[in-house]
């Protein structure tokens, strides 16, 4: 039962080698190991649907579109997420906000989650933090068309995953708020 190792020069088997072969020593060592695991039975199994793993702090789960605390969508339709996405998951149709020609928003926003690899590059790319990654991962569906999400669905995911919303941009960070033009209460930029 001894497996010859080709790299080593062949040496004459000693008496103990013969004895080990005769008594199936190597087999018995292996069988002792398995028996030890049987006797000190400590399963590492997690009975998944009944008990769930503690997710890490920075877990990257289902993507979602977020809102400000007054209910308006954060997304400004800049397409940067679409550009950043390596798997072409995202499709944004941008448009002007009706009646406010200086403001834009995403008229339509689609995510094909069958292709998403949850890298989080779109979240990094978003200048207004309109995208977020939730801790949801149980998204098994019977029809994979159900994973082609539109804007309403993505907003709904964001609503249930982020109950605490941020204030509007112009009320928190003047320096990154240049996408909004309605910060008249702040000093104007000098030209």
């Amino acid at each position, binding site marked *: 039962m001894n497996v010859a190792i080709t790299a080593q020069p062949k040496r004459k088997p000693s008496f103990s080698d013969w004895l080990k072969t005769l008594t199936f020593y190597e*087999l018995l060592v*292996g069988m002792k190991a398995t028996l030890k*695991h*049987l006797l000190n*039975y400590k*399963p590492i199994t997690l*009975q998944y649907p009944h008990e769930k793993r503690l997710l890490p702090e920075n877990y990257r789960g289902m993507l979602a579109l977020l809102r400000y605390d007054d209910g308006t969508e954060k997304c400004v339709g800049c397409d940067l997420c679409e550009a950043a996405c390596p798997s072409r998951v995202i499709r944004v149709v941008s448009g002007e906000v009706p009646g406010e020609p200086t403001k834009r928003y995403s008229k339509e926003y689609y995510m094909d989650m069958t292709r998403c690899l949850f890298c989080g590059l779109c979240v990094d790319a978003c200048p207004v933090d309109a995208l977020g990654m939730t801790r949801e991962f149980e998204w098994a569906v019977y029809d994979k068309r159900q994973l082609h999400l539109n804007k309403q669905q993505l907003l709904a995911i964001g609503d249930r995953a982020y109950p605490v919303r941020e204030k509007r941009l112009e009320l928190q960070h003047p320096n990154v708020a240049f996408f909004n033009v309605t910060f008249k209460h702040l000093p104007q930029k000098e030209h």
Partner: protein
Amino acid sequence: MEIGLRLAVSLAQIAAVMGVVMLTVMVLTLAERKVLGWMQDRMGPMEVGPYGVLQPIADGLKLFFKEDIIPAGANKFLFTLAPILALVPAMIGFAVIPFGPTMTIELFGMQVKPFVISDINIGILYILAFASIGAYGIILGGWSSNSKYSLLGGLRSAAQVISYELNVGLAIVGVILLSGSLSLVKITEAQSGGFWNWFIIALPFPQIFAFVVYVISSVAETNRVPFDLPEAESELVAGFFTEYSGMRFAFFFIAEYANMILVSCVAAALFLGGWNAPYPGTLLGHLGLDALAWIENVVWFAAKVYFFLFLFFWLRATLPRLRYDQLMRFGWKVMLPIALGNIVLTAIAAYFFPR
């Protein structure tokens, strides 16, 4: 009338033994997954019933209601025949296994042996003969499926079973020389009176080498790990039953486990004293409960059989699969000379020190 009654009693015995065997198969399918799981720090099946104990019933129901597919291009007759050819020999071998002490009871004016269906005088030969027929089921199943994986599995099985049947047969010869009989009942009786009379260590020549050869060869004969080349998952999908589904697959599955039980029974009967306790007589007999002594004997037999079945699982959890040439070399160049040498030495010992 007399013949009809005898037939009825025999059928009742057969039904009882078949029931026990099928129940054991059910227990084994669960026990194998559980023991393997425990040895690998897993839990095994846990969903059906408390701790998954109803899993065999769920498996059976699933297989029963599955679609029965006969692949296009398969030989329909042989494809149907193969699972039956595999199952029947595995089941039929239990006819000569003595499960308990040799005694006759008076039933409707007939002499009935309750613990052996049929005590024929060539019992062990009968088991070997039917075990070889079981190989036909595997080979024909592989050939008739019209699939290359099945065919390769079937051919491997043919070569393997032929190589290792030989070793099984030769390993048994030593025991037959010592006991002077081919009947399993007589062989078991020859080992009564304490564990020092069991053929594995009995004088004049302990059959320990024959025992090792028999155990290894029977693992190979039942196509179990580490000799599971006919159904090597990583190479041949599922080997000879790749194309089988539903009840036909279940037949092969039951046949494999029934074969495991059969070789365990034979090993217990030939080498470990069968239903004999490791001390002279029985404890219940010494206490004056002779009428209940058979319970102790049957329990000892079951304990020995279950030890071998546990060994099957233990080996499966421990050992990787052999390569095909290793398997053949081991069978012909190692096992066969040991078995032959054992026969010669046993014959000499039995000639000079007759029991």
